[in-house]
């Protein structure tokens, strides 16, 4: 498992695109928003939690098809399926590698972009916390979607169609957590729901993803 994680991280680092592209996309989306809604600070501050969460979610979506597609093309997935580690561990590990190369950098970049959007001060803590705890769910759900579409020629668009509806609860609770944090309301409910979704995804989806990959390798 460590070997697979290290290999995926090395590959992401060497290929270059792994870290950079999603971050750059997140940055561009955030910069575009003020051009669209106007520079007025109050408006930006009010919509900042939602924009940052939607931006992070879309940036995460961009890199999903890389989770299994490359390994499928070059036969690694066949070999991993016959290797002594269970395929469930493989899917969970690859989701973890995706989070470390996408979700974690997005979480760390979000407060900086929050400044651009005039996010009120109490929001920074909740933004970072909710992204840190919510993006693992995005990676795991995305890995499941990637496993479903791994054998397909043009799986990218289909992957978005399958994954985006599954992202809705995470987005609702994540963004609401920040919004309530900004307004000084109690955040316990959305926060706990967000953590619950993340834990539930990590508990269940590796099995579903492994099942999908087994079907796709047949």
């Amino acid at each position, binding site marked *: 498992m460590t070997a697979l994680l290290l290999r995926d991280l090395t590959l992401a680092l060497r290929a270059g695109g792994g870290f950079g592209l999603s971050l750059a996309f997140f940055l561009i989306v955030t910069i575009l928003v003020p051009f669209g809604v106007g520079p007025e600070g109050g408006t930006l501050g009010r919509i900042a939690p939602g924009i940052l969460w939607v931006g992070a979610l879309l940036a995460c979506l961009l890199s999903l098809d890389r989770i299994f597609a490359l390994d499928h093309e070059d036969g690694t997935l066949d070999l991993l399926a016959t290797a002594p580690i269970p395929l469930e561990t493989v899917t969970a590990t690859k989701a973890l590698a995706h989070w470390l190369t996408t979700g974690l950098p997005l979480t760390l970049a979000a407060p900086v972009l929050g400044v651009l959007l005039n996010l009120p001060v109490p929001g920074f803590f909740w933004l970072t916390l909710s992204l840190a705890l919510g993006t693992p769910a995005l990676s795991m*759900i995305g890995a*499941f979607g990637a496993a*479903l*579409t791994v*054998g*397909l020629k043009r*799986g990218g668009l*289909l992957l978005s*169609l*399958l994954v*985006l*509806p*599954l992202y*809705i*609860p995470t987005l*609702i*609770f994540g963004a*609401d957590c920040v919004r309530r944090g900004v307004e000084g309301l109690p955040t316990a*409910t*959305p926060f706990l*729901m967000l953590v619950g*979704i993340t834990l539930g995804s990590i508990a*269940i*989806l590796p099995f*579903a993803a492994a*099942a*999908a990959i087994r*079907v*796709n390798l*047949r």
Partner: protein
Amino acid sequence: MSIWEYANPKKFMQTSAWALPWVTGLAVVTLVAGLIWGFFFTPDDFRMGSTVKIIYIHVPAAIMATGTWFMMLAASLVWLIRRHHVSVLAAKAAAPIGTTMTLIGLFTGAIWGQPMWGTWWAWDPRLTAFLILFLFYLGYIALWEAIEDPDTAADLTSVLCLVGSVFAVISRYAVLFWNQGLHQGSSLSLDQEEHVADVYAWPLWVSIIGFGLLFVSLVLIRTRTEIRKRRLRALEARERMA
């Protein structure tokens, strides 16, 4: 005789060929009766006027929209556990019907909502939930269409249906939490005070039964088509091999 005998495609084709005219006929009679009763023989509502009558399409369509997903979930489970092809083909056949019912529910809702709430669309929990359900249907159908091998497609769509169901339920609660709505309460319920008056309820029940029968009839027709498509596929493949 066990119910699983109907999982045999041949047996299913025989039985459904016999049942189809009856179910379809009954569906037409019930629908016509329910809708005519509802549209022409019930009084206008004192607040909503005649717009209330769209309820005879709106509510049954909404019930069918969610019911179809449950039927697909059950059929997918049967496929994953017992590997009966008819079951998963019925799920495939039902998906576009569920999508259409969802759209009918959304559109009639918009038409009804405009004079009542003064807006075509509001991000009300129920409306939003149906919009999300619509997205789930789209994803399910798109996955079926994208995969060449029918058994692979059956397995993957079934897994998606299972996982999707869990997330659909979470979404329902997430949306409730996200926005308390302006939609009225349930139109029909057995234990609550707040529901429609009996004069509306009876034709509504008839309409719902009519929509249910229509659903069964359409699923039978579409499942028969899917089975024939599979057979055609097998025949063509054999031609190529020979």
